[in-house]
């Protein structure tokens, strides 16, 4: 394996290790809140690694990463803000 490709395979190994940790945490009988916290943390780390290393955001201008992250967070929050209250209204028989 040439040196240029090594960082990519190091990322692969880290991603697999994080997945193994997630599976272990899931089968261990941890308190649910702690388990969810660890799983979400590991998930965020995996998303960051895939975006930064595999999708090569680390080589783009920093503003690209900011635009991508902000767009998803902003519109994601927008979606949640409209879906969740509406959902609870339907559930409560409001309409």
């Amino acid at each position, binding site marked *: 394996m040439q040196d*240029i*490709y090594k960082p*990519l*395979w190091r*990322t*692969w190994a880290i*991603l*697999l290790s994080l*997945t*193994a940790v*997630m*599976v272990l945490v*899931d*089968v261990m009988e941890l308190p649910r809140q702690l*388990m*969810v916290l660890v*799983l*979400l943390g*590991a*998930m965020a780390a*995996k*998303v960051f690694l*895939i*975006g930064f*290393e*595999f*999708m*090569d955001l680390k080589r*783009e*201008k920093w*503003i*690209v990463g900011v*635009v*991508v992250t902000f*767009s*998803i967070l902003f*519109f*994601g929050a927008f*979606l*949640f803000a409209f*879906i*969740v209250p509406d*959902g*609870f209204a339907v*559930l409560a028989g409001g309409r």
Partner: protein
Amino acid sequence: MSSHSAEALTSDATFLGMSWRKTMMWVFIITDGLLFAGFLASYGFARAAAPEWPDAHEVFHLWFISLMTFVLISSSATMATAVAAAKRGDHATVKKMILATIVGGTVFLGMQAVEWNALFAQSVTLSSNPWGVAAFGNYFFTITGFHGTHVLSGVIILAVVWLKARSGRANAEGVEMAGLYWHFVDLVWVFVFTLFYLI
């Protein structure tokens, strides 16, 4: 479109230092990501609102799903290697790694078919299941089906890129675009794996 604005959209033009092709791929990824965000938000709401939800340990074979995750992450690594090789002009590695990615994607789809069959055998459908939570099958098949369709599209796109690479017609940017899409498919699986199978 005026000639001036048409000129601005040629492949040489850039936006934030990226070609317009790449910019539009990112726009697509963001919008497609929001589609999955909508699905997962809806799933989260349905699950929070339901008085009971089937225990994932009873429904799924976690080790099998973990193996599926291993296959998809590995295919993402081979794709990233193909993109890096394409940028260096290492055509032999590009062809090998794209082929490995196609194999990974195909294996993932086969494993998903096995998983779906196991659920069909347990009488899980879009509208009913043995646990009495109708929404469960609905969300499961919709979200994993939608993701699987993305994997299938990715395999087809990669097959086209591989054929072009074989005949020496693939350029580095084309391989990179296919790579971005493939990594996005992997990224979505990270969410699906965590939120559907583990939590």
